[in-house]
């Protein structure tokens, strides 16, 4: 469990990443605790789905940049490929749900302004921050989901995000238990 100061810093950091990914202000409010508690319903589900797709686009972009610029250490490429595949699956699943409901689907941004990234630990740290943001966002929003089938999907997506985060923490020598 994080202490209150660190919790608040982590929340700010997650909200910052979510904002950079193009997440709506209503969801940013839910993430930073300043927004009104939205009633569980179709509209909230669609807002969460849209935010989740935006975060998945951002995660895919980090992995694509790592592959394109050869930033991923050779011994870790199988993890990067697996995790990129997970994010693409999460994105496509949630886009399918949005389309079925006739809700607008957010496009990936042209540029996520990741800034300079060096190969090795620097890229891994960047991937880790994106995974932490995804985990925190799903963890914060999951109890607001109304549709049971989407709730089930979100739970399994969250399990994947935690695996990604744990692997990158282990690679960086950070505490994992």
């Amino acid at each position: 469990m994080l202490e209150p100061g660190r919790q608040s810093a982590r929340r700010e950091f997650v909200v910052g990443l979510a904002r950079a990914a193009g997440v709506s202000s209503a969801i940013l409010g839910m993430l930073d605790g300043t927004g009104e508690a939205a009633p569980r319903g179709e509209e909230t589900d669609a807002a969460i789905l849209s935010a989740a797709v935006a975060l998945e686009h951002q995660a895919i972009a980090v992995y694509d940049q790592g592959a394109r610029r050869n930033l991923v250490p050779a011994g870790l490429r199988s993890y990067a490929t697996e995790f990129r595949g997970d994010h693409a699956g999460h994105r496509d699943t949630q886009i399918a749900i949005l389309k079925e409901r006739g809700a607008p689907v957010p496009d990936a941004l042209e540029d996520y302004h990741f800034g300079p990234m060096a190969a090795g630990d620097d890229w891994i740290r960047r991937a880790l921050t994106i995974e932490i943001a995804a985990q925190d966002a799903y963890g914060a929003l999951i109890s607001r989901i109304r549709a049971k089938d989407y709730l089930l999907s979100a739970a399994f997506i969250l399990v994947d995000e935690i695996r990604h985060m744990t692997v990158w923490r282990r690679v960086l020598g950070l505490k994992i238990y």
Partner: protein
Amino acid sequence: MRVVASRRAVLKAGALSTFAALVGPRRSDATDYADAKEVFDTVDRLEAEVDARLGAIAARLPSGRPLVSSLEADHRRHRTVRARLRGRLHLSPASPAVAPATDAALDALRTAQEALVYAHAEGLPALGDAAAVDAMAHNMIDLARHLAVIDLWMEMESSRA
């Protein structure tokens, strides 16, 4: 590369064109819980199995004791959360869990741990209470991390072999 469980594979399948294709016919191996009591009873049973397996591993492998003790501490916290939720949802308290006979096999621990994680994920829709979903999802986050740690442990063992 390890074999992924079929449920995760379904979620990864980017070719799915509609939500109905994903969840229309309920996945054959997914458990559809009737209510919160069934979820908590199942989680209690599966957690007892994981605890028993962790105990067997700690007894045989002293180097595994710090990990085991950390996971057991999380389980104790999770039991407190479930006891509070049982009260909140007006359910009877948990029956004392019976620890099954187990061995110290790491792959069997992984299977039991995965079942515990899946019970949480599949149980969320049956809880019918946002606060309970939030609390059980956060327990699930710990357990999914434990599962990832066990995976890494197994990968390390197999690369040593």
